[in-house]
């Protein structure tokens, strides 16, 4: 089996770097702190001040650790990917790569694969911390596998955004800021859009029904589906499926309107596939942008 040369080279460089060791230490250190905190809250605090240990709430440990890890993934991936192409450009190695047999898509995929490998490496290194929950039980291996899948998909999704901006901008700083900006838009912007739509509908409803506020919750309709590209909602849907009853997800969607039960039931998988689709699109665009012989997307109008 022949590996992508860029992927091999990136792995070799990154694994030697002191930066990798620092990221590994920081990632697991923060995660361990969250794990210990969750453990303390669940056992020590409850038993000392509450006099009892609520074994039903032990899954809270799992939730706290995974939410911390998911947050770390969201925070780490842009830093790993936003410099991938712009960094080559800044080091003046990109042009040499482009004169070789490698296609722009191979370069892009090699870069993405190395970033995802790094993320998987970090995720696997954190397994002992996640395994805290196994001392008590309540979480299955399937849940773990699902969580790992989510981490990989999120790394691919956010990584594609990072690589897209890294290809688009010459400077790593611009690419990094833009990637974190898009992450903010995906996480909070989609919710803000729904709140805005909800407000507009509410105002309209109030207008038609006079001064009396209607009892009915404003329905944002299909606009709710933009939450499918919100990684935080994807995580939430997974957690609800694993350790919840689904009622909190229904109630969350209820703030904006109604989502059909079928979509709600498969929200996690629909979301994962959609995010992978968006990733493929962004990677395709990035490869096109990287191709020095590409045709322009548009042509300037000829000046008369």
């Amino acid at each position, binding site marked *: 089996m022949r590996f992508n040369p860029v992927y*091999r080279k990136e792995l070799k460089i990154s694994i030697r770097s002191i930066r990798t060791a620092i990221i590994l230490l920081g990632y697991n250190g923060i995660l361990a702190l969250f794990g210990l905190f969750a453990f303390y809250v669940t056992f020590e605090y409850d038993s000392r001040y509450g006099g009892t240990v609520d074994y039903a709430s032990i899954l809270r440990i799992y939730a706290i650790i995974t939410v911390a890890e998911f947050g770390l993934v969201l925070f780490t991936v842009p830093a790993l990917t936003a410099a991938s192409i712009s960094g080559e450009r800044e080091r003046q190695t990109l042009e*040499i790569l482009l004169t070789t*047999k490698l296609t722009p898509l191979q370069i892009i995929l090699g870069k993405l694969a190395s970033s995802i490998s790094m993320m998987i490496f970090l995720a696997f290194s954190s397994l002992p911390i996640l395994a805290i929950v196994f001392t008590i039980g309540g979480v299955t291996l399937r849940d773990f596998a699902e969580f790992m899948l989510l981490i990989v998909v999120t790394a691919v999704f956010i990584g594609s955004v990072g690589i897209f901006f890294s290809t688009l901008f010459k400077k790593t700083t611009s690419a990094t800021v833009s990637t974190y900006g898009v992450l903010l838009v995906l996480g909070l912007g989609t919710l803000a859009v729904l709140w805005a739509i909800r407000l507009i509908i509410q105002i309209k409803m109030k207008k038609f029904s006079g001064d009396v506020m209607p009892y009915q919750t404003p329905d944002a309709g299909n606009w709710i589906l933009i939450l499918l590209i919100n990684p935080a909602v994807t995580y939430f849907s997974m957690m609800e499926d694993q350790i919840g009853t689904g009622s909190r997800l229904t109630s969350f969607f209820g703030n904006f309107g109604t989502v059909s039960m079928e979509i709600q039931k498969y929200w996690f998988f629909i979301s994962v596939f959609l995010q992978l689709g968006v990733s493929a699109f962004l990677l395709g665009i990035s490869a096109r942008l990287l191709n*020095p*012989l590409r045709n322009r997307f548009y042509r300037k109008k000829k000046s008369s």
Partner: protein
Amino acid sequence: MLLIKNLTKKYGKFTALDNLNMEIKKGEIFGFVGPNGAGKTTTMRIVSGLLKTDSGTVNVDGVDAGTNPGELKSKIGYMPDFFGVYDNLKALEYMEFYASIYGITGNKAKQLCLELMDLVQLTDQGDSYVDEMSRGMKQRLCLARSLVHNPRLLVLDEPASGLDPRARLEMKDILKELHNKGKTILISSHILPELAQMCTNIGIIEKGKMVVSGTVEEILSARGTASPIVMKFTAGQDRAVEVLKQNSLVQNITIRDNSISILFKGNETEEADILAAMIQSGAMLSSFTREESSLESLFMQITAGEEQEVSE
């Protein structure tokens, strides 16, 4: 090996290449000369598949660059005028990385890379980190890297820029050795005396057009009478300048502290006439010499009036 026909490239309103035509035959070392902004790097980037043409054709060893850029890349070894390095990568690993791109891996790759490093006189540098090497060593490593897939045509953009005299000499020796091995090389440089010694053919480009091309001897003999005349004065230099300005055969006058250099297109009799005219004007000449034809003087003549940056 390389055939360029009517190549045109524009950046906005600026025409970098204007119907450029050139040909390099197999086994030639072709020196590409021109002032800054003349179109040398643009041509090399197009040949290497890094730039799209506006019109015209580029054909490398029977492969059309426009229709088959993928195959073109296997025929070209490109060395840009800068050298980017990867941190935490050793010289041999750097070479092996590029070898792996062409499907050469394992012991075969190691052996090939060591041979190439030996060729560029970096035999013992395999374990050195690339970013810790000197500029000369990096340039040679970059040259070895461009040879890793045994390309038919080497495109070297200013390979000796920024190198000290010793490193330049080493680079020249390596290129000569590559020529002896039958490689076809397109090389651009501002160090004209070295190009004249090393290249089998020269092409001078200006404003995106090939002004003259051929073997060094052909070019110099064709334009030999136009070598600059250098005059030194003890007094009356201003009067001499007035005489020269009135002579239609004088093309370009460069005035220095106590000397004047002119491009003069006349024959020996006309040369004697102008000398007599200057003496009659009262100018005190201490020397009057026509310089020996050189690539540098030819370059100065052709690019007269343009920005000139020629280093020794």
